């Protein structure tokens, strides 16, 4: 069985001919990826990592500079007409559609671009509006919707055409907990009920989202895939190490912490309002803890809280990239 998505040494450079430093951007750098049919696959990375570029190539909006990309075994460069029959895409925060159409009309309009018979499209639309708790909004004009409602409508737009492969680019970006949960539950349900017929490629920079939803996750940074496995297996990458969290009073000079033997990687975030610095360590050797404690004291800070934690995908990212997402 051919994979749902496959890329081979996929590279995309923007402005390749520009000589000026920084003008030429290598958004994807020799990416090899294979996503099987029926998978809910996550692409996890910070802003500017290359996630959206990859989705644009796979959804036929952008050509690769070199390398190959296949969707359902079809070359996105050559067989783009056939690829489009099998896909759809939804982006977080998009403002697609026309403000003066109602929610139902807007969704119907997009379904027509996929040649779906009106009666079938409207039936699906009503069904999904019901599942998203939006049935009472179906006759409201799109411009009157809240951000969450609008994004739910966008997500429905992606599903209404019943694609084989759905590309979701940060689908819960900026949404509240409830709206995010509704969307995540629907995505999960859609893939699971399809009996390995439907595939979702989801990009996100929310660790928990990738952890909860995805069968497998690829961690991407600076256009490169750094690791690709199930969330459990990825977390095993740091299982042998200890992950430690410390909240200390604002610590300005943290250089000493990086030099402590046994500290593999660490990140810090400042909460200036509350005068707190949160430190996150991946340790190769637990004996480093006492050195960290004294290092903090030497740095003039006081420890407010200290705990060993279960590794998360963020720890994996820190270990692989050497920095956090923020």
């Amino acid at each position: 069985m051919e994979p749902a998505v496959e890329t081979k040494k996929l590279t995309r450079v923007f402005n390749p001919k520009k000589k000026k430093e920084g003008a030429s951007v290598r958004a994807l750098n020799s990416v090899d990826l294979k996503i099987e049919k029926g998978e809910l696959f996550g692409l996890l990375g910070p802003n500017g990592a290359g996630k959206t570029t990859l989705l644009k190539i796979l959804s036929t909006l952008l050509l690769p500079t070199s390398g190959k990309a296949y969707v359902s075994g079809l070359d996105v460069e050559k067989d783009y007409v056939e690829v489009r029959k099998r896909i759809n895409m939804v982006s977080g925060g998009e403002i697609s559609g026309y403000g003066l159409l109602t929610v139902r009309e807007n969704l119907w309009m997009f379904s027509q671009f996929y040649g779906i018979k009106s009666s079938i499209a409207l039936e699906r639309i009503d069904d999904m509006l019901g599942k998203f708790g939006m049935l009472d909004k179906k006759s409201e004009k799109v411009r009157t919707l809240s951000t969450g409602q609008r994004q739910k409508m966008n997500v429905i737009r992606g599903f209404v055409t019943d694609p084989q492969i759905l590309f979701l680019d940060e689908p819960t970006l900026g949404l509240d907990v409830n709206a995010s949960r509704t969307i995540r539950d629907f995505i999960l349900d859609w893939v699971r009920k399809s009996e390995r017929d439907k595939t979702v490629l989801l990009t996100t920079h929310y660790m928990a989202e990738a952890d909860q939803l995805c069968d497998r996750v690829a961690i991407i940074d600076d256009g490169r895939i750094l690791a690709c496995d199930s969330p459990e297996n990825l977390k095993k990458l740091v299982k042998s190490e200890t992950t430690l969290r410390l909240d200390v009073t604002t610590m300005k000079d943290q250089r000493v912490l990086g030099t402590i033997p046994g500290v593999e990687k660490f990140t810090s975030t400042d909460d200036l309002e509350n005068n707190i610095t949160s430190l996150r360590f991946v340790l190769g050797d637990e004996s480093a803890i006492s050195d960290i404690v004294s290092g903090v004291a030497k740095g003039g800070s006081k420890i407010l809280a200290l705990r060993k934690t279960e590794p998360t995908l963020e720890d994996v990212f820190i270990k692989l990239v050497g920095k956090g997402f923020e």
Partner: protein
Amino acid sequence: MAVRSDLRTFKNAAWLGWQMEANWTDPFLFVIYSIIKPIAGTLILVFMYLVITSGATNTLFFSYMYVGNAFYMYVADVLFGVTWVIHDDREHYMTLKQVYIAPISFYMYIFGRAAIRIAITSMGVFLTLLFGVLVLGVDINLAAVDWPLLALALVLGLACLCIMGLALGGISFLTAKHGQGINEGVAGVFYVLAGVIFPITILPGWAQTVSRLLPVTYWMEAVRRGLEPAVMAGLPGSTGLQSLSNLQLMLALLVSTVAFLFISLGIFKYADKVARRKGKIDWTTTY
């Protein structure tokens, strides 16, 4: 303090307006663009004139029509510019709401954007007049120009246009995408009724009464008397305002401008209130 803040808003809005108007291309192309449009608009009238008269452009009526049309560019451009600010900021750049909630004078923001329009239009008006004098024999004698009258008329007239633009800007809050037709339309009212390309005496009686209520009618007459006194003195028939002295004419312009100031402020404030009530400050209406 408030004056300083207003001036800064005005300056920044003018700078932003300039960036939006001009930085899409290089200066040379921008100048060409700024010339072609007004000259083409003027040539429509020239050909309309030629097709009927089969020739001569050195008549008093031709000069009358030509100068009126040249100065009318201010009317169309300023009114268009102000309403476009609302539409473009709201639907395209989606920045209207940010500007609207900023602690600045929104009036000054609009006037700043309008000021740059006036500056660019002035170039078009000048070049159109130059083209008329050099190529078509339009009768403008610099030695005979009544400069104080012309200058005063220009200042008052442009202020009046900005004030009227404000009312249209307010209405743009409430209108959909195609509402940009509002400027086309209101400018059209002035084109017909304000004696721009023909004397108002050709209009039906009721329309002439309306003409005399419009500041642009007095402005057109004043600008022409300032720029081409000989044409205005020799034009056969009446322009409809010939009985007014220059002083009376300027007074009429001033009074109607002040009247429009109150009307425009009233319309803008009302539209602003309705827009907030109906949530129209940041809507999009494209289709």
